[in-house]
């Protein structure tokens, strides 16, 4: 096969990749090719059969599959080439990958390459939950695809591990397909989703949330029979079930990023990028949930769109140089786990928002952005919730001193009133 050279090669056809591709075309990029390894593009929303998608980028509320179809159609209308069942399996040069497809192997290269490979949930072994290794142990991703691919329920009675947004997406899938949800188990003192989402998933009768608890053992030789649960106060209990769904605990799908030797953010384990979504390798960009684990799909799309704009500027003027020598680092205080992007490029590049996550629950307060002690931005919040992101607008970037020290971002809690 001959080498195909395109202007922008986008690896991953989920919300971030498709949105970046559309934006590239809108800004005049020539040949834009999106690779997706699944039979249809659209990413994770394809399997999320509930509403809640599309507000941030499309200004409408859609179901996951409808949102995925819409993004794919917009890409088609923008004359983005989308190759499905096409897996980038290795790098053969700086911006060239080998792609396996049913039509054969193709070397493909882009003047600019975007990694938008998304994220996955840590499965049970990665969480070191001991016990037997029976059938019936799933992640949300495995559950939703199993139910949709087979049209059957995953089991009769399930325990869901985790109590963040995605956990209730799993609850929704389980219940909609006829599986009773025995409990939602979280190590945190309470669940971490929005009340409406929880209601939508669990219905008026709700689902018991076992807070401050963790699954300590899976029981069952052939099939799950029960899980053992320990709560923080030392009590242990056993819940009979034939299915366990491990949810959340995201890890970026970073294989290609690591094989390319990209610098990673030590906390998110996604590629470290600057405010123009540039990685440590010239011409290689990264966006979406690869950077930080799961954000709402529409946020990934908004990020992809901004990244597409930055890529388009790069394609017009690649000689302007890759990342500037003087970068300002963004760092988080002890109350926040990480922030993306973690580098400020200068030159007017603006991501739609900085994304950060709280380290634990907290009351009212404000996110404060400072450089060398100077307050650049302040955003109030009513509460801090772990596993839920805080979006910090980026308008303050113009006030950053490019020669100054690192920018620090901290969540400062209001004093408790007596």
């Amino acid at each position: 096969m001959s080498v195909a050279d395109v202007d922008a090669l986008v690896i991953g056809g989920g919300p971030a990749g498709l949105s970046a591709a559309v934006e590239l075309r809108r800004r005049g990029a020539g040949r834009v090719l999106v690779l997706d390894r699944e039979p249809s593009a659209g990413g994770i929303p394809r399997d999320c059969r509930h509403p809640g998608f599309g507000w941030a980028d499309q200004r409408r509320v859609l179901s996951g599959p409808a949102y995925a179809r819409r993004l794919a159609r917009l890409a088609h209308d923008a004359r983005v080439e989308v190759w499905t069942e096409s897996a980038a399996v290795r790098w053969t040069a700086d911006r060239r990958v080998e792609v396996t497809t049913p039509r054969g192997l193709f070397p493909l290269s882009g003047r600019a390459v975007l990694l938008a490979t998304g994220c996955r949930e840590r499965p049970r072994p990665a969480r070191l939950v001991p016990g037997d290794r029976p059938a019936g142990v799933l992640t949300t991703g495995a559950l939703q695809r199993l139910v949709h691919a087979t049209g059957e329920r995953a089991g009769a009675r399930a325990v869901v591990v985790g109590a963040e947004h995605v956990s209730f997406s799993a609850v929704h899938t389980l219940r909609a397909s006829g599986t009773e949800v025995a409990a939602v188990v979280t190590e945190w003192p309470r669940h971490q989703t929005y009340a409406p989402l929880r209601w939508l998933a669990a219905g008026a009768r709700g689902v018991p949330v076992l807070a401050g608890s963790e699954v300590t053992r899976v029981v069952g030789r052939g099939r799950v029979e029960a899980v053992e649960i320990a709560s923080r106060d030392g009590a242990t209990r056993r819940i009979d079930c034939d299915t366990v769904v491990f949810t959340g605990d995201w890890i970026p799908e970073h294989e290609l990023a690591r094989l390319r030797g990209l610098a990673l953010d030590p906390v998110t384990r996604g590629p470290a990028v600057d405010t123009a979504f540039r990685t440590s390798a010239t011409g290689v960009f990264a966006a979406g949930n690869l950077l930080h684990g799961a954000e709402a799909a529409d946020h990934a799309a908004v990020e992809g769109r901004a990244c597409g704009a930055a890529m388009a500027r790069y394609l017009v003027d690649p000689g302007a140089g890759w990342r500037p020598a003087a970068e300002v680092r963004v760092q988080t205080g002890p109350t926040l786990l990480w922030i993306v992007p973690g580098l400020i490029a200068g030159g007017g590049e603006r991501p739609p928002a900085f994304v950060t996550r709280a380290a634990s629950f907290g009351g009212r307060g404000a996110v404060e952005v400072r450089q060398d002690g100077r307050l650049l931005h302040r955003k109030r919040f009513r509460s801090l919730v772990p596993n839920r992101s805080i979006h910090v607008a980026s308008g303050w970037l113009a006030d950053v001193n490019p020669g100054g020290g690192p920018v620090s971002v901290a969540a400062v809690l209001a004093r408790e009133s007596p």
Partner: protein
Amino acid sequence: MPEAYDVAVIGAGVVGSAVARALAAYELRTVLLEAAADVGTGTSKANTAILHTGFDAVPASLEARLVARGYALMGPYAEAAGIPVERTGAVLVAWTAEEVEQLPSLEEKAHANGSPDVRRVAADEVYALEPSLGPGARGGLLVPREAILCPFTATLALATEAVSNGVTLLLRSRVTGVSRSPAGYRLECGREAVHARCVVNAAGLHADTVDGLFGRSRFTVRPRRGELIVYDKLARELVTRVVLPVPTKTTKGVLVAPTVFGNLLLGPTAVDLDDKDDRGTTREGLASLLGWGRRILPALAAEEITATYAGLRAATGSGDYQVHFDADDRYLCLGGIRSTGVSASLALAEHAEERLSTVVALVVKRSYRPIRMPAIGEAMTRPFQDGARIAGDAEYGRLVCHCERVTAGEIRDALAAAIPARTLDGLRRRTRCLQGRCQGFYCLGRITAMLAAATGQPAAAVTAAFA
């Protein structure tokens, strides 16, 4: 009464499969009886996946002789049959002064066991060989010929070759009773009894029970559980060879080994149990492995864990294999093979062949079909990498399991193989699907649907339980 078999082999693990394959070369009616729903589901599936030279065996023991011989036979067989083997070599590392003192005797032992190439290395050479090792290594032993292999494919290749050459494989056929019959033996195994003139006991963890059915009580199998952690492929480059500890009296200790699927393995623990089915992992076991990992290879701590599992070695009180032949009774027992079964399997089969030749006539078959297993080793050219293969059949370019790069063509083939996959676990062992870092996040639904379609069962039935 149905016609009697000449030989019944009890147990389709790696040893029983090797014996059946050896007998398939002769004009014999051979039956291979397996209690589980697939071949190789006991000790043969959950081990450290190492092809041992036998350098550290007890010199002059049967195990030492058979492992050395088995190692020599496995190389060419693996090459011909397509069993993934990588000749990585091993380095045994001494971390304490006491362990350093043992190195000369280990070296001597290796030389006595037919491994003259084993030599002592100083600490700086240990680090030159394996720069990522943690601090504190004081010296070591280089074992150049120690290798890694795919234990799933090894068992499947041997059983497939046996079946392809006329051996009858009966799955879900646990032998629960033995009696004398005019033909020799009547073996109760499920719905129908099997009659055979000679019997080979290769029942692994249950070899003592089967030995009991033949009126013997020569040994007791006490399962020794070994828990293992499989690290992500991105950790593979941390070592180039197997990193062994100095063995103790009871165990070879916790090692770090690359796998032929491109992962890194840490383990095993060693805990004696009474329950022959308890393959569960434990909090303590996993915690102890993490501790070993931090010491041996500190960089492991930052890497993702792909899988954890536990295997049971068929340990007996004795330090050696329990191989007994009763010519008058036409009964051969191959028990107590512990953790070196895959390495010794072809030598055990050779041994069985020799013994049985004294009680049955071994007439070489005129036509014999060698087999070639699908290429699932990381060092092989796999279908997804093979443009010509994909050009001939697009299914080999259609990736289903992305983490392990398994194509729809390979899954289809495994479902239609001579010994077809009938469970998700069976597909997993034949193709690598579902074994990767996502553990089914992306592919479980599609693979379940393919399995259900191939077996004509509802999905709920094929995911009901692992077997």
